[in-house]
């Protein structure tokens, strides 16, 4: 639980920069015997893409869950636009202006794509139960407005033509986009993306990268991802977790070269101590062979 000691783990103070939209201070979470997070702090500046990376089980999703109110931290505070969030519950996110995608897809299987996205747009609805019950014109107009918004969001991601289909029948990349559209249609100021590239092919991933960069004129993004190409190309800042602690933070280049990160996560130059899984000789070979897909190599 002691605060991080290495220089890289100190919080980057953004002198003169805009104040953080969202900050997490000293958050610790324990599940039984597992310390999922210990004293983690980070700030998300407006219109910034903040990457959170780290080995499997490092606590990235847990961190998101804390930020979303799914997990109540044992200690620590959350600040949203300077105000402390106490007793955060997930359903409040949308109205606060925080959007999130899930590590899986989390689409509503028995609703059309359009309806899926309309649920995300609900925060913009102006009429209540009564107008829905009596089918008042107000409610209908409101619904039409939501549908229009949803279509716009779908169009923005180039998947508008699937609006009337059920998600189950769609290609995987389309489904990913629908999930993203659902998060975006709420017009959040902060978007939390948990492994958005999982299962995507390379060209789709490249498009996703551009898309995320494109979002930064409207919102800040927090991104968890294991695809380093993507992370390194879109993030302004990266925080690295390992065993629930922040072990490094900084710009992509800085982090990439950090030996602690390499040892814990990236796995280059580790040769023999990767032996958890592989034998010595294959370990070396792997390091070499996968080397060329590291970010920067050839970009």
């Amino acid at each position, binding site marked *: 639980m002691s605060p991080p000691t290495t220089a890289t783990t100190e919080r980057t103070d953004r002198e003169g920069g805009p104040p953080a939209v969202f900050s997490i201070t000293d958050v610790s979470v324990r599940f039984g015997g597992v310390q999922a997070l210990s004293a983690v702090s980070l700030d998300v500046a407006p219109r910034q893409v903040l990457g959170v990376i780290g080995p499997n089980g490092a606590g990235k999703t847990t961190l998101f869950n804390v930020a*979303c109110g*799914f997990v109540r931290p044992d200690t620590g505070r959350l600040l949203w636009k300077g105000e402390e969030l106490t007793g955060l*519950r*997930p*359903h*409040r*996110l*949308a*109205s606060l202006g925080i*959007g*999130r995608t*899930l590590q899986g897809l*989390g*689409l*509503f*299987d*028995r*609703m*059309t794509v359009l*309806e*899926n996205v*309309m*649920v*995300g747009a*609900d*925060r913009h*609805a102006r*009429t209540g*139960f009564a107008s*829905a*019950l*009596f*089918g*008042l*014109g107000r*409610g*209908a*107009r*409101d*619904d*039409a407005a*939501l*549908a229009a918004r949803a279509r716009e969001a779908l169009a923005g991601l180039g998947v508008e033509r699937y609006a*009337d*289909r*059920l998600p189950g029948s769609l290609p995987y990349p389309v489904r990913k986009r629908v999930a993203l559209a*659902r*998060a975006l249609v*709420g017009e959040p100021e902060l978007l939390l993306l948990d492994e958005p590239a999982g299962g995507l092919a390379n060209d789709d991933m490249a498009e996703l990268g551009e898309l995320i960069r494109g979002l930064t004129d409207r919102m800040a993004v927090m991104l968890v991802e294991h695809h380093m190409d993507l992370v390194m190309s879109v993030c302004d800042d990266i925080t690295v977790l390992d065993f629930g602690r922040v072990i490094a933070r900084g710009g992509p280049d800085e982090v990439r070269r950090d030996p602690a990160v390499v040892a814990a996560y990236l796995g280059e130059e580790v040769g023999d101590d990767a032996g958890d899984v592989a034998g010595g000789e294959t370990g070396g070979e792997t390091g070499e062979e996968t080397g060329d897909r590291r970010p920067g190599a050839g970009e």
Partner: protein
Amino acid sequence: MPTTTETAEKAHAAEPRGGLRRRWGNSVLPRHLTLAALGLLAVTVVLETTGSFANSQLASMAYLGIAAGGLTVLTGLNGQLSLGHGAFMAVGAYTTALFLDGDNPLPLPGVLAAATLVTLLVGAAVGVAAARLHGPYIAGATLALAVAVPGVVLHFDRLGGEQGLGVRMPETPAWVLDAAYFVTGSELNPTKYVAYIGWAALVVTYVLLANLMRGRVGRTWRAVRDDEVAAEIAGVHLGRARVLAFVVSTACAGLAGAVMAMAVRITAPSGFSLTLSLTLLSAVVLGGLGSLTGALIGSALLTFLPHLVTGVGVDAGLTDVRAAELAPAVYGLTMIVVILVAPAGITGTVRNLWRRRRGAA
């Protein structure tokens, strides 16, 4: 509860989205009202052309249909399984009996509203508890509720104990009689009167439910049913959505109970046995979960099938006892066969077939 209610799955995908929607503009109300008017017309024609007994059967179908409509919202749209809706019908029925008991009872619409409201309040209390539960745990709790409510009734002497409370229908207002005679050319007997009340209540209920299902509220319910976590992130308050669905559904059950009390003319604990709750649920699934048409078909099945079967049994020369056992046997068998052959229920299956036909053409 994340019930994977396959039966309901295509309910929405298959709606003829584009076409109708565009023709009616964006509001669903005109369409629902037109359908309702057509429905009422059809009901009038049927009630006027059939005999008293058929009228009384149609009255039963009306109250079963109202309750089934509510249940299909809860189970089909929101994924909560209730094995205890009979208990809520009991609340509505007893409220009706009590309100009609005095010397100057409320006018009928007032009584119906009161029954709905009281049940709604009870439903809200139960719904708050049920919203925390999942899958078989809701089933268990509602099952216990289904048997507890008749027990409670026995406990309070005011509620008439085992033999229940008689329900006194207020005199049919003269203007209603006159109007009925003017329109139909025949006398309005009490049985037919109750049938009209039941079907009017049903049509109103279905219009309101259809509005809800099509709009924002229904969408929220379905989202919760399909994926709680995703719904929550999208800003849906899970508890509130669940309780709301529960409340709407129990309000329907209360209204159904009120109509039932008038049709049956008594409310007694044994009228709200577990069987009532369970057959309601089965009707909803057999008809086609998540669709109001399905609920209506299911309640028709529930009303007419046993009677038909017993008749057939007696005609075939079975003893009374055997013939009486035949009805449940056939009903049970129907449930099994429908689930095995047409797991999407009757409406779901017909719709799938129709779609396939259209796809092939």
